């Protein structure tokens, strides 16, 4: 087998100078941590963290029928979304399984951006191109020229105000009031050093925060500007803490809680599928025909102690019958006890149900809880 060279973002040398440990994530050489993933996790919960997410995909759809094309291609009704808003949605297979979960931004009546997971970005771009073929809409995969930097945590707004709304910030068209008044899942468009800048109040950590999209060549200068303005309040964060933060927040990760062999409803995502509010779309038939009565369902599990049940650990009921498996699990840095998400039989999903996780041969008593494990105050 030929080993493919890892791709790297525009910020690779910045990460190296910060002493990052790198990992191969979906073919990208990405920072897994800079120093301590627990300290980075805590920084996001208490102040703010700075993330390079430029490996994610940005796919534009433009044209008079861009909204109709997305209504056909995705599970949600994107045509009903106002300009300036963002929406979580799913890209489904014909059979109703999940190819990816995406965030879609509406920049204009006839212009959308679909933000894809790094591991699926190419497949998503291909699928969107195929699905948009019958519509008056152009698909443009800008993943290779778009950088994404996230600032996440309770101090995020203050840091962005300091970094981007002072006289010489280089930002035009987005002011302090725009940031202060920006609600969740809204965004503003402006320019940074003359190039397009999109700032959205979105994230994947369970905290308040922003995601900033700029052309690749401005990534390093924007990172530096945020770092200087953030000072002690802003900690560079790797993908290790991104995973523990999203897990505490009960957010699914593609390949773990979402996948082609899972219907959205199994992952608690039935509400994302617009069966009643729009016409035909790819996946509708599959979702409608699905018999979910015996399909495993996603639940949250908690345990005592410090030993966490990890992905692939089997779950049994108290009589020893196998009832499912864990998809993500960790010792929660914020809560101090093990947490996990698991797919289990529909008969054992009730909150409070006692189950057993097989942690590498040792039994760990676990209990079903409602998601998320952690919500910000």
């Amino acid at each position, binding site marked *: 087998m030929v080993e493919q060279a890892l791709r790297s973002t525009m910020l690779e040398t910045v990460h190296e100078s910060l002493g990052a*440990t790198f990992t191969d994530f979906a073919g990208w050489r990405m920072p*897994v941590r800079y120093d301590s*993933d*627990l300290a980075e996790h805590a920084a996001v919960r208490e102040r703010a963290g700075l993330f390079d997410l430029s490996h994610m995909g940005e796919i534009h759809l433009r044209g008079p029928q861009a909204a109709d094309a997305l209504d056909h291609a995705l599970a949600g009704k994107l045509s009903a979304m106002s300009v300036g808003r963002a929406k979580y949605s799913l890209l489904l297979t014909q059979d109703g399984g999940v190819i990816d979960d995406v965030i879609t931004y509406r920049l204009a009546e006839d212009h959308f951006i679909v933000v894809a997971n790094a591991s699926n970005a190419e497949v998503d771009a291909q699928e969107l191109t195929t699905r948009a073929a019958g519509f008056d809409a152009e698909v443009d995969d800008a993943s290779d020229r778009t950088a994404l930097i996230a600032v996440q945590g309770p101090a995020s707004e203050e840091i962005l105000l300091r970094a981007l709304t002072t006289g010489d910030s280089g930002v035009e068209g987005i002011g302090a009031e725009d940031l202060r008044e920006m609600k969740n899942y809204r965004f503003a468009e402006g320019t940074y050093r003359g190039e397009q800048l999109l700032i959205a109040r979105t994230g994947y950590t369970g905290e308040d925060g922003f995601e900033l999209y700029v052309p690749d060549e401005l990534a390093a200068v924007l990172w530096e500007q945020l770092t200087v303005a953030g000072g002690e309040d802003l900690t560079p964060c790797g993908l*290790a803490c991104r995973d523990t933060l999203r897990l505490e927040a009960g957010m699914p990760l593609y390949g773990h809680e979402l996948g082609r062999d899972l219907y959205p409803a199994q992952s608690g995502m039935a509400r994302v599928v617009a069966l009643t509010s729009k016409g035909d779309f790819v996946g509708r038939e599959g979702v409608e025909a699905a018999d979910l009565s015996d399909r495993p369902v996603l639940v949250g599990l908690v345990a005592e102690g410090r030993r966490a049940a990890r992905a692939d650990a089997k779950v049994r009921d108290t009589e020893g019958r196998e009832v499912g498996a864990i998809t993500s699990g960790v010792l929660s840095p914020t809560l101090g006890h093990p947490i996990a998400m698991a797919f289990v039989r529909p008969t054992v999903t009730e909150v409070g149900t006692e189950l057993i996780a097989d942690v*590498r041969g040792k039994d760990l008593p676990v209990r079903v809880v409602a998601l998320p494990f952690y919500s910000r105050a």
Partner: protein
Amino acid sequence: MTAELLYSKDHEWVRVDSDGVAVVGVTDYAAEQLGDVVYVDLPEAGADISAGTEMGEIESTKSVSDLFSPIDGTVTEVNQAVVDAPELVNSSPFDEGWLVKVSFAALPEDLLSAEDYTAFTQS
């Protein structure tokens, strides 16, 4: 890296104290690779362990790794401090973060010197 220690290719270190007992821990290289250690599962005092075989587990937020014994012998003492505060593996891998003490008859011949271990981790 500490000169008087011996190292295994599984990234454990061994130090023979003046009382003839071997102290075993994991290297700073291993600690760095693991990330923040949040749980260690160690053998109990009295357990027989043998070189190259699993004697416990070490968990970070990211992963779980098997802990291999670098020597043959019997565990005489377990570091309760590291069980209670696994972060000692990161903050002090060669000192406060030691894992077990082991009585032994002979050290395996394939343990590495500090120099050879450094070369091994950089290869």
